[in-house]
C-alpha cells in the first residue's frame, strides 16, 4: 500500500544504488568499538520513573528497571531513607531493642518484688542447666517435630489435590480452608477442649463404641497438644504447599510416568523436589511457632505437657521472676533463629552458585 503513495521512491534499482544512504549513524565498517552484548533486552514495561521528576533518577528494581548510571544517586538515597524511615524506626524501637533487652536482662538477678534487680550475674544462666528445664526443652522440640511431620503429611495430598482441581473449585476450597482461620484462635482451642473433655462428645462416642473406658482422659496429654496444634497449623502448611504445587508444571510428572515411573515414584522424585521451596516454607511456618506455643499446651496440655512457652509465662506471671523468663526466652530466640539462619545461608549459597553458573558462556 505504502509504495503507491511515495513519490520520492524510485523503482529503478540501479539508480538507487549510487545514492548515499540517508542515515548518519557511525559506519558499520568501522565497528571496532567495544563488543556489544545484544543479550538481555532493556525494559519495555515496568516502572521507569514514577516518583521522580527530571532531576531524579530511575528506579532500581532489578527485574525490569535500569539502574540509572551514576547520575543523581544522592537524591535517590535521600528519598529511599525518607520513605523507609518510619517503619525502620518503629521496628527498631519495638523489635530490635526489646530483643536485645531480653538478652541483657537474662544476665541480671531477680528483684524480690518481681522486677529486675541491679547488677549483673550469671546465676540465671546457670540455673538454665537445671534438669527440669532440659526435660521441658526436649518435650518442646519433639512435640513441635511431630506436629510438623503430621502437618506436612496431611497437607501434601491436600495441597496437591487442590492445585490439580479445576480453577473455580480451587478458590472455593481455599476459602473453605481459610474460613476457620478467621475465627478466634482461642475459641477453636476451647472448642477442642470441650470436645476432649471427660464429659465431652468424643469421649462419649469412644465409650459408646467401647474403645475407651471411663478412666481414660483425652485431655491433659501431649497427644492432645499435638492434635490441637496440627489442627491449628494445618492451614498454614496447606497454603504454601498449594502455592508451590500450583506453580509446578505437572507435565513433568506425566513425563516421568511416560518414562515408566510408578505414581508414588513420580510423586517422590519429581513432585516433591519441584515444590521444595513450598515445603521449606511449610516446615518453617509450623515448626517455629510450634516451638513457642503457649495457649495450646496451657489449655489442653496440663502439667504433663508443659512447654517452654508455658514456663516463660509462669516465670513472668506466677513467679514474677523476669530474669529467668528472659533467660528462657533468650534460649528460645536462639532455637528459633537457628533453622531460619540455616535456611537463609543455604539459599544464599544456592543463589551465588546460580550466578556463577549463569555467567559461564
Amino acid at each position: 500500500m505504502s509504495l503507491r503513495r511515495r513519490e520520492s521512491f524510485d523503482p529503478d534499482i540501479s539508480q538507487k544504488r549510487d545514492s548515499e544512504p540517508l542515515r548518519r549513524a557511525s559506519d558499520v565498517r568501522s565497528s571496532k568499538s567495544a563488543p556489544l552484548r545484544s543479550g538481555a533486552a532493556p525494559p519495555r514495561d515496568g516502572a521507569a520513573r514514577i516518583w521522580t521528576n527530571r532531576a531524579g533518577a530511575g528506579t532500581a528494581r532489578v527485574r525490569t528497571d535500569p539502574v540509572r548510571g551514576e547520575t543523581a544517586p544522592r537524591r535517590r538515597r535521600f528519598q529511599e531513607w525518607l520513605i523507609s524511615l518510619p517503619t525502620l524506626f518503629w521496628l527498631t524501637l519495638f523489635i530490635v531493642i526489646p530483643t536485645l533487652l531480653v538478652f541483657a536482662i537474662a544476665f541480671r538477678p531477680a528483684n524480690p518484688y518481681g522486677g529486675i534487680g541491679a547488677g549483673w550475674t550469671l546465676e540465671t544462666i546457670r540455673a538454665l542447666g537445671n534438669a527440669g528445664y532440659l526435660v521441658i526443652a526436649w518435650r518442646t522440640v519433639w512435640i513441635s517435630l511431630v506436629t510438623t511431620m503430621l502437618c506436612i503429611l496431611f497437607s501434601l495430598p491436600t495441597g496437591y489435590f487442590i492445585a490439580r482441581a479445576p480453577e473455580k473449585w480451587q478458590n472455593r476450597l481455599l476459602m473453605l480452608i481459610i474460613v476457620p482461620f478467621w475465627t478466634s484462635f482461642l475459641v477453636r482451642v476451647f472448642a477442642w477442649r470441650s470436645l476432649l473433655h471427660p464429659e465431652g462428645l468424643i469421649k462419649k462416642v469412644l465409650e459408646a463404641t467401647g474403645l475407651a473406658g471411663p478412666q481414660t482422659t483425652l485431655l491433659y496429654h501431649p497427644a492432645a497438644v499435638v492434635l490441637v496444634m496440627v489442627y491449628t497449623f494445618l492451614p498454614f502448611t496447606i497454603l504454601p504447599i498449594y502455592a508451590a504445587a500450583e506453580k509446578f508444571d505437572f507435565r513433568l510428572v506425566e513425563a516421568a510416568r511416560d518414562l515408566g515411573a510408578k505414581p508414588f515414584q513420580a510423586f517422590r522424585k519429581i513432585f516433591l523436589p519441584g515444590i521444595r521451596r513450598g515445603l521449606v516454607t511449610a516446615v518453617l511456618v509450623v515448626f517455629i511457632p510450634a516451638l513457642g506455643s503457649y495457649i495450646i499446651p496451657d489449655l489442653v496440655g496440663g502439667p504433663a505437657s508443659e512447654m517452654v512457652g508455658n514456663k516463660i509465662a509462669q516465670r513472668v506471671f506466677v513467679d514474677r521472676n523476669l530474669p529467668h523468663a528472659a533467660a528462657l526466652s533468650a534460649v528460645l530466640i536462639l532455637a528459633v533463629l537457628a533453622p531460619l539462619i540455616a535456611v537463609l545461608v543455604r539459599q544464599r549459597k544456592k543463589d551465588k552458585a546460580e550466578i556463577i553458573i549463569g555467567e559461564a558462556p
Partner: protein
Amino acid sequence: MAEFLEFRGVSKRFGTIQAVGDVSLEIKKGEFFSLLGPSGCGKTTMLRLAAGFEEPDAGRVFLDGRDITDLPPNERKVNTIFQSYALFPHMTVRDNIAFGLAIAKRPKTEIGAEVDKMLHLIQMTDQADKRPDLLSGGQKQRVAVARALINRPDVLLLDEPLAALDLKLRQKMLIELDLIHDEVGITFLYVTHDQAEAMSLSDRIAVMDSGRIEQVGAPAEIYESPRTSFVAAFIGDTNFLKGRVLDCPDREYCRLDIAGLPGILCFNDKHLQPVQPIYLSIRPEKIHISHERPEEEPQRNYLPAVVEDVIYLGSNTKYWVRVAGYRIQVLRQHARYFLDEKPLRWKDEAWIWWHADDGFMLDHFRKADEGLLAVPPQKVGEPFNGE
C-alpha cells in the same frame, strides 16, 4: 519535508549493556517510520527515549526543532501505544479515551464531543461503557490508538502493537493501522521485529542491531540493496558466497573469483577494486532454475547444479541445490498450473542462472554471520577456502 523527530548522537546504557550507542536518526513529518531489528537491538529503547521514559546518557532528542531531551513524558506532544496496550482497567473505554483531555482540563462538553468522534473512528460507539477486560485484543488496540490520537500528538509511537495478536487479526490490524495513518496524517514511529510488518507499512525503515543503526531506507532499498551482511541476512533470505574481485571489464560490472566457480559477473555498485575480498549475495527468488540448459545471454551467470532438497510451499517451491560444492537456495514461483509441468526432483541435474544486476556485493561481513556462508564442504585440517 523537514526533519520532524530527530535523534542526535543518543546513547543509553543499562548497567553493563549498551542498549543504544551513538545513534542519529531523522524522521520526516507525516512519515510512517519503522525501527526494525531483533530482540535486544535497542529499538524499544529508542522509542522510550522519544517518549521520555528514558533519558539518554549522551545526545539530544529534537521534536519539530525543539530540544525535548529534558522534558518529562507528560510534557511532550508525543503519545505511545504500549505493547500491552496499558488500558486503565478501572475505567471504561470512554474514560480511557478521554483521559488525556481530562488531564489537560478541557471543558466537559468538548471532551464528550471529541471522545464520540474517536469512538466513531474506531467503530466502538456501542462498547463505550465497557471495561477493558471485556474487550478482545483487536478492540483493545483500537482503544489504545484512540486514546493516543485524541490528544493530537505530533508523533505517535507504537511499540510492537501487533505482537500480542494472532496471525489473522494481525493482518487485519495492519491494514487498519495503515488506513489510520493515511487518515490522520501524523508521524508514526513504529517498532517491530517483524519484517513483514515493517516492509508493508513503512515509508522508511531503520534496521537496528546491538544498539546501532545498520541501514536506513525505503523498504525496497533495504531489501534490494542491503549495506551490511546483517541487513541482508535479517530481511528475507539470501545466499552468501565469499570471493575476490578479479577485474572490472567495464565500469558497471565486475568479475568475481569465487572458489570453484568460473568468473561470476556482478553489478559494481560499490565501486570496488580488483583483488578486493567481497561477499556476493544473491536472493533466492532472483535465481532461475530449469532442467535444460538455457540459451546464454550477456550479463547473466549460468551454473550447473544438482538438486538436493525440495520444499514445496504451494505458491512457490524452495530448492536447495549443490553448485561446485556450495549449497544454494533457489525460490521458484509457480506462475502456471504446477501439475502440468515436469517438476524438478531430488538428485536431478539442473541449471541455475541469474542476472548480474540482481546480485549485490558486500565488502564487510559480520563475524556472527559467517555461519550463513554457503561454503563448500571442507576436509578436516585443510585451511579455510580462500584464506
